[in-house]
């Protein structure tokens, strides 16, 4: 965070949140019939705590946007939701995170299966160095989701159609995925994620490397995907959060300060830090 642009009043508000171990997130953290519930989630990198007692639900067929200044912990929190942080040796996660009521940190949880149920799209498009077809078919084969070639073809076609890419690539399915444009590559990654029928899709700044037109296509796609999937998206673009999400969560220095309907957050936020951040009074 750029400390130089923060005034005394926002520093005071920040202290009220950061120094208060009993701070409670403002707004409704719970939703009816959630796809995922997170309660008292704490994340530590060795001795350093990065996330403090975050509790929030991710609703079914909703897009929840996670916003906040750099270093606020939104990406760290997102990565807890499909145990991506497991790959970081010094990272330790406590608290309860349940997908459809099932504890994702339980010993019995198969992490590979979990990541099929909770797909992820990253900041930079990362297609495999394989053909367009194989990029989408890879996870389907890995998880044995198609009984024969015709079923696999069907899944690949449907996934590319859902990702809005089919019309652009159906005549070059055997060409390398890495040869597509940046926006197409990102949609290919989304097609790859949805091919294995996830319940939840995590998106970590999916449009930050894309131009405005490609961004608009991804945003339209997110809105269409919401009909079938639950989506949690981390974004630095507040306008994007306002456009694509139904609920917004504001993180600040590892704490979830406020969560609520996106319309309310962007018109009448409750907490002063939320207001200060979204109106551009600090960042």
């Amino acid at each position, binding site marked *: 965070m750029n400390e130089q642009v923060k*005034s005394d009043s926002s520093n005071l508000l920040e202290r*009220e949140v950061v120094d208060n171990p009993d701070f409670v997130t403002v707004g409704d953290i719970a939703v009816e019939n959630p796809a995922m519930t997170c309660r008292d989630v704490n994340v530590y990198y060795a001795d350093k705590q990065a996330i403090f007692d975050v509790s929030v639900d991710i609703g079914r067929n909703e897009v929840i946007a996670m916003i906040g200044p750099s270093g606020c912990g939104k990406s760290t929190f997102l990565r807890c939701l499909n145990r991506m942080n497991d790959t970081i040796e010094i990272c330790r996660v406590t608290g309860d995170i349940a997908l459809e009521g099932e504890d994702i940190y339980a010993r019995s949880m198969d992490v590979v299966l979990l990541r099929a149920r909770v797909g992820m799209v990253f900041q930079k498009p990362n297609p495999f160095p394989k053909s367009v077809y194989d990029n989408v078919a890879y996870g389907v084969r890995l998880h044995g989701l198609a009984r024969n070639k015709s079923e696999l073809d069907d899944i690949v076609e449907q996934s590319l159609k859902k990702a809005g890419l089919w019309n652009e690539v159906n005549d070059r399915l055997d060409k390398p995925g890495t040869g597509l444009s940046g926006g197409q590559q990102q949609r290919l990654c989304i097609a790859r994620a949805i091919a294995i029928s996830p319940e939840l899709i995590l998106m970590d700044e999916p449009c930050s490397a894309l131009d405005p037109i490609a961004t608009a296509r991804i945003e339209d796609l997110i809105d269409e995907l919401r009909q079938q999937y639950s989506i949690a998206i981390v974004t630095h673009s*507040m306008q994007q959060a*306002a456009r694509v999400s139904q609920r917004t969560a504001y993180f600040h220095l590892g704490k979830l300060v406020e969560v609520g309907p996106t319309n309310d957050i962007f018109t009448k936020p409750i*907490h002063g830090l939320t207001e*200060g951040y*979204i*109106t*551009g*009074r600090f960042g």
Partner: protein
Amino acid sequence: MTTIQGEGHIFTRFDDEMKQLHSTVVGMGVLAVKQLRDAVDTLRTEDTEKAHDVISNDTKLNQLDIDADEQITTIIAKRAPVAKDLRELIAVGKIVSELERAGDEARKIAGLTIRFYEGTSRPPNEEILRDIYTLADYVSGMLEKSMSVFDDLDLNGAVEVLNMGLKLDDQLQSILRHLSTFIMEDSRNVGNFVDIVLGIRALERFGGHAKNIAGHLVFIKFGFDVRHEGIDVIVKSIRES
């Protein structure tokens, strides 16, 4: 609720643009009040020349209305405001319209001076006009109060204006009763009666604009729309916020 009211944006030009808009609106408020006071003064002094000046000065308010709208459009296009900034811009767009219309009502009062003192018919006596003077003082005070709240967003002042609006209705009834006694006393007053009632109506609308502005200020501060709410609901909402 804790707020960071008064804290500047990272983009300081955004603050400059908001301040510029704020100052345009304050200028409009000052001008609208002056227009009404000048208009009433022309009635008192029977100064038709000055009444014409008041009417032509209304174009200044019209121009400021257009200027303010342009500034709002530019800020929205450039800054994509949200939260309080967005509420303020939406409300200010409405406030400038209220001020422009308040100026139109002041112009109508100046029109009365011209009608009464440039024509050949018998002008009303001072006694009949006294209600207009009293009411004009009252409603210009309402607008001044609203504009002072616009400056500091102290909503106690807004509640005060809304309460003044309630009393204005009572005052209006009382004035109409009072006026009717003049007609009964001297039927030659009938000719001016309609003009006086229209003047009273213009002043009532002027006060109405001041009251509406107070409502818009509640929206800026708390984000709820009180345009169609009773005073009890408004006061309760403010206290609970």
